[in-house]
């Protein structure tokens, strides 16, 4: 049988979509997100975060924004809603201050006295922040990352979370 020159049986439907597509990378979720959060932190980032005390008791807003930018730079793959809620670390300003926090939402650095509760769910990281093994503690909505001075990260869902 001769091959038909014009095929009428099958039809290839080509549709061209004109809708704009924004490609900003795949959102990390579940284990992929956990894997990302466990990655060793860069020395520059650890250094920047451990110098919160150096700013004194009252912190300049532009400096806070610089810190927030360095956090965003460290976690470039994360979506804004996946960023940490805040950062807690031991305060070396001396008594009566015990810990200080960097609140990502309110964009402020605040120092807290012993017994004064921490806002935005950061209280659960307080005891860990006081531990000498960790430089600072990153608090996420469903996890805590304890970062050592070497940049190594210990990850936990924490005692305050449902395991």
């Amino acid at each position, binding site marked *: 049988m001769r091959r038909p020159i014009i095929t009428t049986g099958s039809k290839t439907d080509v549709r061209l979509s004109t809708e704009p597509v924004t490609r900003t990378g795949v959102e990390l979720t579940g284990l992929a997100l*956990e894997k990302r959060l466990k990655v060793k932190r860069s020395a520059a980032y650890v250094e920047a975060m451990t110098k919160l005390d150096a700013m004194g008791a009252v912190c300049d807003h532009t400096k806070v924004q610089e810190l927030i930018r360095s956090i965003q730079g460290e976690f470039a793959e994360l979506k804004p809603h996946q960023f940490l809620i805040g950062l807690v670390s031991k305060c070396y300003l001396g008594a009566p201050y015990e810990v200080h926090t960097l609140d990502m939402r309110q964009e402020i650095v605040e120092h807290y006295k012993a017994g004064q509760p921490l806002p935005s769910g950061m209280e659960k990281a307080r005891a*860990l922040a006081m*531990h000498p093994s960790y430089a600072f503690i990153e608090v996420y909505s469903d996890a805590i990352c304890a970062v050592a001075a070497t940049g190594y990260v210990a990850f936990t869902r924490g005692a305050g979370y449902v395991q």
Partner: protein
Amino acid sequence: MSNERVISTANLNFIENSLSQLRGEVQFVSGQIESVGHEVQSVSQKVLDTQAKIDALTQDFHEFVKRDQMAKDLQLAETRVVKIRQEIETKFGHYGEVRRRVTGILQAVDVRLVKKETIENSTEEHMLAAPRYWLAPCLIALAAWLNDNKELADRAMMEALRRDDEKTSLFFALVTRRGSRYKASREWLDRYFALQDPHELEREIIILIDGFTNGIFGPEARAKCGRHIEAWIEELSQKVGFVEEQHKQWRDALEGKLRRLSGEAYPYLRKYSSTWTQLQQSLEGAKLHAIIHDYFQDIFSKEVVPAKGIAVAVDALLDTLVSKFDDEELPLRREERLQSLIIEENGDRNAAQSRFGVEKTLEEKVSFTQLLTNFAMHPETSHASLVTQKFSIALSKDWIRQAHDDMTVDNRAKVPQQIELQIDGWKGTTEQGANEQELVESLTQHIYRRRDEDLAWVKLSLKHWSALIGGLLLAVFGFGAPVLFLFAAAGIFYFFYSKSRLAKLRLKMIDDYEKLLQSCKDILRAVLSDVVDWRQEYAAEDGKAASVTEFLESVASEQYTFSSFDTARSVIQS
């Protein structure tokens, strides 16, 4: 007016008598109620005592049932192990003959003591006796090779490959290496590697890893092995969730080393704090650091004794290859392992089951990283040598460190900040055990409040006062009828006797409460001393976490491959 007076006099007498009678009856009823109250109180105390006894009995009973079940399970496991071993012997005993021939033939040929015909005849007999067994045609191929019978050797080899490709390839890789046929050995190894999927490896891969770490293969083959291992790890690490699974596997393995705290540690804290369970878990978790550190250090401090020569080393591997990894035997071997664990755990089936679950050494196919975990944590059941164990730990050190870090931060996050104390109905909290003064004051107030509440009940009641008033009235009327003096004296005596008895009772109660307070204070001080000791011990044990990290940092995998059998230097870096 006169009418009013008459009515008034008559009615008052009647009412007074009636009231007096009523008062007597009310007093009687009140006395009855009081005595019933005492009865109820004593019955309620007895009920509480009985309840406590029943609780203790129930606990003893449950303990007894558990022990009895464990004893039965232990006995059953001991019987089963024997039965399973007999079954293995009955079903696969004839394989033993074939297995022994492998190294037998090789060693006989080494010293040239046995005629080639004898070897040939003997191997053919075993081919008939062990149908379906991959090793039988391997033996024929070996014998034919030794007799220079290429055609038979090829045929037998093809049959062996058909029966079990992987084991045959590994077998010939080792046999040819033993005979210093490097090229042939390399080709067999290449074939073996080509068959492997790092996600699903056969258990006998341990022979290859052991050969690699013990320096059995030549320099080129060793470099090849090293590259394959690196590539496998790289491939596995790319898969999402795989590294996390390794962390979990390692965490389970590390937590498997947890030891329960002695039942005699911190007796006061254990008895008088509702926070004890968390404190116990935290301390056990902290003590794990030292256990893990000692475990790894012990492995790395052991000296590796190399085999006397390449032939001895390969023979040992061949023995393991032919005797430990036959899938037909696997279900029975698995059951045997479970029963052995039940015996090790003294009949505790649940503990044995959980250990068995963590081991995963008798799975048919496992991933390369699971194998590394098995080699590191269960070298006996996975048949790994000491060098392989060291190599596996070194290769997995990043996963171990991460698992250990996660476990540590979890444990630290769960340490209770406030410790609850309960002593004889009193409740208090302490953080470091330093607020003794404040707690003693609170305890004293609590005991005094209870004492005052109890003392309030110990006072002269209506019946005592009635006896006194009745006695005085009778004494007045006694001038008319002297016999009433006797009753008056009895009433007044009863009043004063009761008063003195109650005074003594109050004194005794005050004294008892003082003693109770003293004893509670002593307990409180002992509990606070336990709290201080606990915090100190926890801090000391928790501090050892850093030593595990430091130790793991100091380990490097390339240090732990052994190369004593090489006569040539490794030109290509592995």
